């Protein structure tokens, strides 16, 4: 539209400026501070680049930057296991969300046309409910005297209450619950565009229902599977609220470590380094996924 008009930059410039100033620059600052050291001052790190101090001070400050924080990230066992369990919990949650997501997205895409917008809305509505509240809602369900144990004991399935709250299981449940709509939406969008005659063609050529699913359906919606998995896995790996509310004191997830490092220990440089490592760990699969399945 604006291609021929030559004034398109008027439309592009404001969002571009905003993103650069209030998004890109902050990340560059995180990178810089991750190379600084904690200090008992305001702001609580050194060195500080002061444009008024001149070139010599700039050089000195540059020389004061170091990779010490990254060394501690790698050397610290606690941090190491926090990363590991973050990735494991995020991966397990992603797989469960994928199975549940397919379980609902497949029939949704086959629902009568006029119901489909309603179903989509029902899937999205929980997203508009506070994340915090949704995680909080599970405390009452999972705690020892909560709804789940009450129901299971009433049914006679268990005698003693199960200890679910404050375990990794509770964290996985909470993450699956919180991020499930992000999995369902791309799967549904992809399945809905699907020409059903392709499935009929597979059956016509002798493929049984399970073969049709694994040979035709799944490969054809692969981009959506990857997108949904990224939308669940990446934020889940950095999740703070769910492990904080539902996890136990021994549930180590990196989001929590960043939070405490930042607020309790006030070690901003270390927290920055933790954030950068997390970012690179979770972005690698995303970039690889995108490259293999373009568009």
């Amino acid at each position, binding site marked *: 539209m604006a291609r021929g008009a030559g004034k398109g930059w008027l439309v592009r410039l404001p969002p571009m400026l905003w993103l650069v100033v209030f998004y890109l620059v902050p990340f560059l600052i995180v990178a810089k501070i991750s190379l600084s050291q904690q200090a008992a001052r305001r702001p609580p790190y050194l060195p500080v680049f002061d444009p008024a101090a001149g070139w010599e001070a700039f050089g000195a400050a540059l020389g004061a930057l170091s990779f010490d924080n990254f060394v501690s990230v790698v050397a610290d066992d606690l941090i190491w296991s926090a990363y590991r369990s973050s990735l494991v919990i995020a991966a397990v949650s992603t797989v469960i969300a994928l199975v549940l997501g397919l379980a609902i997205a497949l029939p949704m895409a086959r629902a009568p046309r006029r119901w489909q917008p309603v179903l989509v809305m029902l899937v999205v509505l929980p997203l508009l409910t506070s994340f915090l509240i949704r995680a909080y809602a599970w405390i009452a369900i999972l705690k020892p005297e909560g709804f789940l144990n009450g129901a299971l004991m009433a049914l006679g399935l268990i005698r003693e209450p199960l200890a679910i709250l404050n375990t990794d299981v509770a964290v996985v449940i909470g993450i699956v619950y919180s991020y499930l709509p992000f999995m369902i939406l791309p799967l549904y969008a992809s399945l809905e565009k699907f*020409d059903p*005659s*392709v499935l*009929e*063609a*597979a*059956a*016509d*050529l*002798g*493929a*049984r229902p399970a*073969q049709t699913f694994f*040979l*035709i359906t799944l*490969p*054809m919606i*692969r981009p959506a599977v990857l997108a949904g998995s990224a939308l669940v896995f990446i934020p889940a790996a950095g999740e703070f609220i769910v492990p904080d509310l539902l996890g136990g004191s021994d549930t180590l997830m990196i989001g929590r470590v960043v939070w405490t490092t930042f607020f309790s220990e006030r070690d901003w440089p270390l927290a920055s380094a933790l954030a950068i490592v997390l970012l690179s760990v979770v972005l690698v699969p995303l970039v690889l996924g995108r490259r293999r399945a373009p568009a």
Partner: protein
Amino acid sequence: MPEARTTTDGRNAADALISIRGVSKAYGGVPAVTDVTLDIGQGAFFALLGPSGCGKTTLLRMLAGFETPDAGAILIGGEDVTAVPPYLRPVNMMFQSYALFPHMSVADNIAFGLKRQGLPRDEIALRVAEMVRLARLAGFETRRPHQLSGGQRQRVALARALARRPRVLLLDEPLAALDRKLREETQFELMDIQRRLGMTFIIVTHDQDEAMTLASRIGVMQAGRLAQVGTPQEIYDHPVSRVVAGFVGDINLIEGRVGAVAGRMAGFVPDGLEVNWQVAAGDAQPGERMTLALRPERLDIAASGRQGPGNAMTGTVLDAGYLGDSTLFRVALTGGAVVRVFRQNARRGDSGGLTRGMPVTLTFPADAAILLRE
């Protein structure tokens, strides 16, 4: 063309490859197919013809196994397959959308059904190569469907469906997505392949020319019912109803009353014209109101006064459309009705000197007209 007439009238129904017996199907109370009984013999090229929504695709999908009849049975080779799922039926389908697997190459698409049969690898390779040759796809084996032209995709769909050597190939509007020229070429290719393989083809189409060209037999469907089954010539020359007559080819329908019936001939008095034509009687009753069907090319047109033998009517030329090989006249009869007349142009510049407003006489022989009751 191999004729498969043995089963048309059900005399040898036991020999029929496909036997559809009293099949009905409704969607949410709305009938799509109602009580269809039809036998199709081995080696036939059968066309289900009808306007959209007439139930022909539903019938085809029931043959493939995608829909289950509410009532009736479907037999293939004498075996009741009504409850057999599509992946176990000895039929394959070519889809209107082609339904090619977008994530697989041409060769993998063709091999898909063979792999499901569990054929050995080298056997599959041989069959794929054979199909690639048959469908003239050499050099395109590794392409994906989106890298092919419409005509190539159509041939992949055909090759994929033929690869399993089904007893019956079902074709759902297989040529609808092709442009006119390609469609004509492909029609002859399909006929050629069908003849060479000796396989039974059942095609669904709304295009009467396509059905007439391709099929050895045609079943005309209307509102979920089979209105008429016969060879293209039978359907064209002896339609059983006004709907069939109107759907297959161009036709003039003239309302009137049957006069005296004498032997195999009957008199017919068209409304508003003071004539009494002699036409083939069929089962017409004297005094009955009926419709006379006249094909435009069976009418002779001449300037008034140059009348030939046979039944005649007079009128004036409304307009003349020159089509090259022929001219299409619209003539307003004295009684007010308008009829269409095709006149072959044997010589260059041959318009017969008939122009707009000119008084003309139309004549037709007794056997050119058909009396229709419904």
